[in-house]
């Protein structure tokens, strides 16, 4: 087992990794930006080091500072989490060059899969079905127009270095192409440091189904079943589950084999995910994420296998003690990503202070979060506050349990996606498992801001009651016990409510 691990990340995933380290007796070394002093991941770690100001370019993306902390703290390995530097081959290489273990695949695996264009070529060669698209990045609007005509509109612009929906655009026709190309390129540059963008045919309403793979350095490579992540908004997953509602043993075997073949083609070590688009029984390779996924917990709940534990063990040189036949899926797990975005305002991200936080509890419920009461949600990082996961012996009980847990989850101070997820869990199409990546567009009632009369009555009664009990001038009484105002200046600036009576 590795003696110590530096965790080059923040938020819920950093805390997730610290927990695994603690349980395995591995010394955990956290890093944090000025904005994250005292954050939960900092507090849970065995030691913690500040690495720079809030903007990630000056902190979590600073390879030099991370390696400096690794040297200073005597870290033996580095876990990149997801996002940030997790899919940057240059980081993996720098970590290895510093004599440390990089917890993830080999740098050349990351590079091969990170270049989405190259990955598509590799996969085609390995015999995995791939979506039609441009053979390489498109450099200028003219080339883009040519390629798009050949592929046929609508087309999808994607960052060659990308993943996670950043630098991605759907373009319906030639008109929007130039502007979309520029925007996608800028976003790709900002997110991945590489503006290259390529085109792909845009499939109409497929499902997003992905396969978790896990390999060791001794040539063992297994898949841990599939996850369906069709409920997405602008290519950001919102709800994930395992198994997929269409995941028959036959499909699982076929997709699992394709995923293992894809992983083997790039000599994969560690935990990774092969993503597919699924339509009418066929599946096409979308991309491979050469890192831990946000949604890994649903796989953990149905397999009983702790993925971060096995990332650490495999990185330490251990061989997987189980084979494909030993992997069995038990029950059903669903995850809702809880972000500080207002689902009734087009998922507008919000900043602010978490005034009250209460995690759901009880049987079959798992909360993986990165906040607590008092956390400031700033504008510098992802709006992901945490992940709520529910397990049940079958899909229906998992859904009902998730609905119950969503009622218990209490986050006051920033709007969150909780009411959206509540609606999803109650939605007939979701209950039927009738999903596609257009789910949210197809069901606008999920994001319509309507309120029923009963709810309005409660809210109005509550407002009058609070107003009655606190009649003094604002903000004198609304202040915290520690003298700070109830809202940060930024938050207050955001109040743009029409002045009513």
């Amino acid at each position, binding site marked *: 087992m590795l003696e110590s691990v530096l965790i080059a990340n923040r938020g819920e995933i950093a805390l997730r990794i610290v927990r695994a380290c603690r349980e395995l007796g591995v010394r955990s070394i956290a890093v944090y930006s000025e904005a994250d002093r005292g954050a939960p991941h900092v507090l849970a770690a065995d030691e913690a080091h500040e690495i720079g100001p809030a903007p990630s370019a000056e902190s979590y993306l600073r390879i030099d500072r991370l390696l400096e902390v690794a040297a200073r703290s005597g870290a033996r390995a580095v876990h990149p989490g997801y996002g940030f530097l997790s899919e940057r081959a240059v980081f993996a290489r720098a970590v290895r060059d510093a004599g440390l273990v990089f917890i993830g695949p080999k740098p050349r695996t990351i590079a091969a899969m990170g270049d989405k264009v190259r990955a598509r070529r590799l996969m085609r060669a390995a015999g995995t079905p791939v979506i039609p698209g441009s053979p390489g990045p498109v450099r200028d609007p003219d080339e883009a127009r040519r390629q798009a005509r050949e592929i046929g509109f609508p087309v999808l612009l994607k960052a060659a270095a990308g993943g996670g929906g950043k630098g991605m655009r759907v373009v319906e026709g030639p008109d*929007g192409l130039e502007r979309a190309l520029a925007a996608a390129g800028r976003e790709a540059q900002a997110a991945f440091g590489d503006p290259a963008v390529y085109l792909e045919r845009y499939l109409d309403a497929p499902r997003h189904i992905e396969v978790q793979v896990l390999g060791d350095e001794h040539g063992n490579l297994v898949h841990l079943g599939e996850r369906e992540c069709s409920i997405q908004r602008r290519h950001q997953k919102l709800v994930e589950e395992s198994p997929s509602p269409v995941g028959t043993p036959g499909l699982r075997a076929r997709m699992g084999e394709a995923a293992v073949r894809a992983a083997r083609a790039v000599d994969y070590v560690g935990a990774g995910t092969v993503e597919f688009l699924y339509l009418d029984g066929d599946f096409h390779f979308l991309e491979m994420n050469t890192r831990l996924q946000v949604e890994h917990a649903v796989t953990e709940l149905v397999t009983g296998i702790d993925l971060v534990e096995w990332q650490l063990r495999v990185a330490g040189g251990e061989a997987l003690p189980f084979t494909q036949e030993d992997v069995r899926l038990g029950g059903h797990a669903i995850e809702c990503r809880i972000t500080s975005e207002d689902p009734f*305002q087009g998922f507008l991200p919000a900043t602010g202070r978490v005034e009250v936080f209460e995690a759901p509890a009880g049987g079959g419920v798992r909360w993986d979060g990165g906040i607590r009461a008092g956390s400031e949600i700033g504008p510098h990082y992802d709006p992901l506050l945490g992940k709520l996961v529910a397990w049940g012996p079958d899909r229906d009980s998992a859904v009902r349990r998730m609905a119950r847990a969503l009622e218990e989850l209490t986050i006051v101070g920033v709007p969150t996606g909780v009411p959206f997820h509540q609606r999803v869990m109650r939605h007939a199409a979701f209950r039927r498992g009738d999903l596609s990546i257009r789910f949210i567009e197809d069901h606008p009632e999920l994001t319509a801001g309507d309120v029923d009369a009963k709810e309005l009555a409660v*809210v*109005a009664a509550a407002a*009058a009651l*609070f107003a009655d*009990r606190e009649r003094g001038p604002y903000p004198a009484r609304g202040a915290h016990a520690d003298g700070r105002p109830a809202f940060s200046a930024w938050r207050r600036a955001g109040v743009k409510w029409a002045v009513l*009576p």
Partner: protein
Amino acid sequence: MIGGGRADPTKSVRFHVAVEGRVLPVQVDGDTVRLEGAGDEARVLDGGGGRSRILSLGGRPHRVFGLRTGETSWEIHHRGRTFRVEVADERRWRMRRVRSDGMSPAAGLEPVRAPMPGLVLRVDVEEGQRVEDGQGLLIVEAMKMENELRARATGRVRRVLVAVGESVRRGDVLIEFEQDAGHSGARDGRNRSPGDSDSEAAP
């Protein structure tokens, strides 16, 4: 003070609560809250807990949270959802009715405001320029996504208050309009369905 005594606890007080575009008159009488017209009556089950209260409505317990955000404005949190609410007592309500024309939002053209804190990446319009409904105005980057703000109606740009590279805070006014041929305003990409197949990044 929250949870503290009221000026005269024996007196019932009437409030007008504006929430989600509706105005509801509510009577608070000690630990009883009555919604006029609706016949609903809520009882305060538990008054403690600083920002939280527990109400019973028809036997069903409800936990609500209130964060005061201004003189008469509150954020009320109930079952996972946050509502922005304005509350006025009878005195303020009457004052308001005399001053403006009822409960409708301030008339006139709405300026474009920053929907979130971020960085201005590009400004596509100039002062005095005529803009069409749906026309892109400027791009703000926040939380690593680009957000294009667009005109919500046809009008004329009166003032551009920000420049490229500038940091803006949520709610900051970015562009003001004046009437050109009909009402103008801003359409800031909110309430658009996520898959809109155009070049607009979600906020």
